[in-house]
């Protein structure tokens, strides 16, 4: 699916990620985690061709990203950035229609087929009753669903989400994550997202990609990678993992910082 080799990323003179390599597992939900400033979003942007690598290779289906036309890529890779902006008067429908841009002709006209996909994307995200509402007037969770619907209208095989749960209350966070997980299961869309919450990362991802100090610190199945030692090394926190008796799920219990800070208890 996506193959990253010896990739260097950075801004101006500052290098953020140095010589990282990994392969995305097709059909999986992969979550990128790491401390603030470790380069999670930077990595996601580069994979979505929004940031030019300093060096190295990103391949999508055995072709370098730079060799595929950006419009072709938009038909199989969709990106939901961290702070998406749209004109204040756009309705859900207007927004989702934009998702068909890569399929439109040079005049930008949409055909009946395109509107079918738009309607399907709106149904899939359960926005049917909000179709003609302005996106700016929606609640945070609804708004995030509208942006996901726009991405869906691109009919992607691979969906990137940059911190899709920030600024949402807890119920809306779960609503968005459950939607993402459903898109992965039912439509077989591979997902790569950046999350801050470790328990949500464990619950909703097949694989985690841990970014730390410019490197991929670990990459693999969530239950194998997420260990007490890793949390101490990467995040500087003490945690305990327990199995919940009722749900059988493996849960993370954060206990505090690992004592590196002078005021730690």
């Amino acid at each position: 699916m996506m193959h990253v080799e010896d990739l260097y990323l950075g801004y101006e003179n500052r290098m953020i990620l140095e010589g990282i390599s990994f392969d995305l597992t097709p059909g999986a939900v992969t979550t990128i985690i790491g401390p603030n400033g470790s380069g999670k979003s930077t990595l996601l942007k580069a994979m979505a061709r929004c940031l030019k690598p300093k060096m190295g290779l990103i391949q999508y289906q055995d072709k370098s990203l730079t060799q595929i036309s950006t419009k072709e890529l938009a038909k199989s890779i969709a990106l939901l950035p961290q702070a998406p902006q749209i004109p204040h008067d756009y309705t859900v429908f207007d927004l989702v229609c934009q998702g068909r841009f890569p399929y439109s002709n040079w005049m930008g006209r949409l055909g009946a087929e395109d509107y079918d996909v738009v309607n399907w994307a709106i149904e899939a995200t359960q926005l049917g009753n909000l179709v003609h509402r302005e996106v700016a007037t929606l609640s945070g969770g609804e708004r995030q669903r509208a942006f996901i619907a726009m991405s869906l209208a691109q009919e992607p095989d691979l969906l990137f989400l940059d911190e899709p749960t920030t600024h949402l209350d807890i119920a809306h966070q779960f609503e968005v994550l459950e939607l993402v997980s459903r898109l992965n299961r039912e439509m077989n869309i591979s997902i790569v997202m950046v999350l801050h919450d470790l328990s949500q990362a464990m619950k909703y991802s097949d694989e985690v990609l841990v970014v730390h100090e410019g490197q991929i610190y670990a990459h693999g199945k969530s239950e194998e990678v997420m260990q007490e030692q890793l949390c101490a090394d990467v995040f500087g926190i003490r945690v305990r993992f327990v199995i919940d008796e009722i749900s059988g799920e493996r849960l993370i219990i954060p206990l505090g910082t690992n004592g590196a800070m002078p005021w730690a208890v």
Partner: protein
Amino acid sequence: MKQVGDRTSENLSPLATLQKAKAYRISIIVAFLLLAVLAFLLSCAIGSYQASISQVFRAIFVDTEGTARNIIWNVRVPRNLVGACAGACLALSGAMLQGMMRNPLASPNIIGVSSGAGLGAMLVLVVWPQFTYLLTPVAFLGGLATTLLIYSLSYRGGIQPLRMVLSGIAISSLFGAVNNAILIFYSDRVQSALGFMVGSLSAKSWIHVRTIWPYTLVGILLALVSAPRLNVLTLSEEMAIGLGLKVERTRMFFIALAALLAAASVSVVGIMGFVGLIVPHIVRLLIGSDYRYLLPASVFLGAALVMLCDTLSRTVFMPIEVPVGISLAVLGAPFFLYLLRRRKLV
């Protein structure tokens, strides 16, 4: 406070629903077109020589000589056509810049066309008056060159709109200072440049029509065809890239097109800055941010507004003629503020 908010939202929601109707948007475009036609006829009929609408038609289509033909066909028709083209170009240019820069304050001034053309005009009108016949080409090239300067100054591995806006403001103030210096050093010759600095349709003839109409036509056609791309550019940069738009190249295209349109207009009628800022906003308040509708509506409203204001300029203080740039600002600013207070803008 709460009451005010409630009232606005009550006023807004039916309008917001209405905005979505395609029919409503198209009818607004048609209304602006009719307004432009009406303004044209009115302006041809009214003035120191009064004619009826039927006389206007006869003078345009039937007569080949006579006073009416002379005044209407040789003076008023070209003057109106120049005004309509200039208004359409500036409104279109402003609309595209506001969209692509995602900045409501963007206008042809921001990309330096006005200041560059103004400086060029000042040089040939005031400093080297023997070259006055070069006014139009010098102003045109001055405008385009300044855009290029601002573009390259703000280019760092790509164009960041805000950086371009700020560079544009800096360059404009710099050129403004040079302009003022010229005004002071050559204070005896300033009179000849005043008309240009405020924008005037006085003494515009068929020669000027021939200069401006090809740019207007090509500009309008290109703008309409590329409206969907402009729609994608109004989203945040990463969204636009994610949707498969070649953002950098598209931005360059719109900057070049906006500069060309504005330079064509400014070099013929002078600096009429307000149209480019205000017309797109009026249209946006009425029909929303979809550029497939906003651009054609801006074209017609821009043309109509300039012709209407020019008619007033010619007639209100007859026989003294006020430059159209002044009446545009005097009438446009209060109307714009009125709209601004009623609806949300950005």
